[in-house]
């Protein structure tokens, strides 16, 4: 760069140019405000319109089997929903499903991503295999696990059990929720691996090397360097997975239909079955609002816990 261009460049940013830059920036800021609005607007509509309808439905009697009887019933639907035995089962199952899946995917995800972060032969193929389940649609996932893997007679698990001289387990009869947790964990483990693997790539190698020279063992390295580095990505995994796991539906729909009894009914499935199997829209709406409320409580804590961390880029 010649001296004269430097001079022109520096002169451009001084004096009268300043004013025009400020005005351009102001104009752009104004334009930019209009650019957020489509997103905000559609999401606002998406939230407010159906939600207010749900509130209205939850306060009236509204059963598709008895049309025309839509009188105002106050909080009767809520009372019904909250005292229904399905509600506590649904709550419990939702918590178990989300909690155990998070635990399994995060713990295994950390271990596996640390493992494949080392160099070895065929790492590319290993990675592809590890993240593949993420591309499988939940309905396929559920049916393959139910019929090909967990089937008590012809499933692969049964064969393995028999091979070791054990009695094959009828998963969906005796441990239905465990089976669902296995299915869902298999689906979401790749997501954890994907994010944690990306994060490990930015781990400071020199820092690790220095620690190693200082005599830190592999466990100390993992605990003091790797794990703290993964704190943020783990928070991201927990947050995104929670969002999706709270409303797990297809896996239950295609395997157990919520049963036996209420054993695999989560809140999402409970409300679905009331609305579309029992046609009680009023009750389902009350349930939907309670689910929204609970999700908001969860969201509040999640955002408190990690949201602050995330936007501080």
């Amino acid at each position, binding site marked *: 760069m010649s001296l004269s261009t430097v001079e022109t460049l520096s002169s451009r940013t001084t004096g009268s140019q300043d004013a025009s830059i400020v005005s351009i920036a102001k104009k752009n800021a104004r334009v930019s405000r209009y650019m957020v609005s489509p997103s905000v607007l559609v*999401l606002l509509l998406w939230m407010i319109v159906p*939600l207010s309808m749900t509130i209205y439905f939850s306060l009236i009697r509204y059963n598709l089997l008895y049309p025309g009887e839509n009188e105002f019933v106050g909080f009767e639907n809520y009372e019904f929903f909250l005292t229904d035995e399905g509600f506590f089962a649904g709550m419990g199952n939702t918590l178990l499903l989300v909690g155990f899946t998070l635990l399994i995917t995060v713990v295994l995800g950390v271990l596996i991503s640390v493992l494949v972060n080392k160099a070895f032969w065929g790492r590319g193929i290993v990675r592809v295999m590890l993240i593949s389940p993420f591309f499988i649609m939940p309905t396929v996932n559920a049916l393959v696990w139910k019929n090909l893997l967990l089937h008590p007679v*012809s499933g692969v698990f049964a064969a393995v059990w028999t091979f070791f001289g054990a009695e094959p387990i009828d998963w969906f009869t005796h441990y239905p929720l465990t089976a669902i947790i296995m299915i869902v964990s298999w689906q979401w483990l790749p997501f954890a691996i994907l994010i944690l693997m*990306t994060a490990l790539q930015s781990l400071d190698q020199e820092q690790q090397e220095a620690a190693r020279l200082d005599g830190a063992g592999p466990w100390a390295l993992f605990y003091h360097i790797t794990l703290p580095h993964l704190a943020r990505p783990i928070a991201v995994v927990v947050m995104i997975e929670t969002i999706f796991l709270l409303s797990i539906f297809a896996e239950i*729909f295609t395997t157990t239909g919520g049963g036996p009894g209420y054993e695999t009914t989560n809140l999402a499935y409970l409300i679905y079955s009331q609305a579309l199997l029992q046609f009680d829209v009023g009750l389902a709406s009350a349930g939907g609002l309670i689910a929204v409320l609970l999700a908001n409580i969860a969201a509040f804590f999640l*955002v408190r816990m990690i949201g602050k961390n995330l*936007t501080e*880029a």
Partner: protein
Amino acid sequence: MINSNILSLKNSRRLNTLIIGVFAWTVALLIFFPILWMILTSFKTEIDAFATPPQLFFTPTLENYALINERSDYFHFAWNSVVVSFGSTIIGMLIAVPAAYSMAFFETRRTKSTLLWMLSTKMLPPVGVLVPIYLLFKDFGLLDTRTGLTVIYTLINLPIMVWMAYTYFKEIPKEVLEAARMDGATVAQEIYRVLLPMSKGGLASTVLLSLILSWNEAFWSLNLTASAAAPLTALIASYSSPEGLFWAKLSAVSTLACAPILIFGWISQKQLVRGLSFGAVK
């Protein structure tokens, strides 16, 4: 003395690499096994598919694939999946990129809370609004239409798209945009000429994730479509009530349903691995 020490160190390193390799391959094969098994089963006869113990070696047959095409029109469902996934991703990007741009470069006091609020709309369990959406769709004639499903997918993926794009834009130094602005670039030029080329990789991962999520979405597609607009997820669910033994056929239809997105994912996995950080890595 020193030489032999280095040599043994080298050897132990090599041994370590070997052990790690074997271990990693075992884990990967275990995790990949269900997919492999599904593909294998799809080439078995129904009798082989139900055999105990399960057979690893068998005479492959294509009859399941032929039967699938007779029983249900695979391409009809596949086309619906393609249209809805790509449609919602394109519309979503058109809305999300400008929003992320202004949030990343013209931050106000409200920006962070807006972003978190957007994410919180994803926390709403879809069942909470299923009935109203169903009724609205009925009134507007959107039930079982690709348009309706596209609208829904756009809305449910929008928050994640805005967030991802926002984190990528955040990494671009403001000075670059200011330089373009000084040269008299308009907002549109700024985005199109400077921002998009600089965040190509990140935006590509955003597009990828949106495609994957839309392709595999199964709540709204099961509840809002019947046949005309039903995507592949709904086709699979229709195979969930068994009429006798038909696992080979189930595997074949599942393989067909997953193959496009799986291959797509494999091709773009490098991009995904690099780009899917959600701003988690500084």
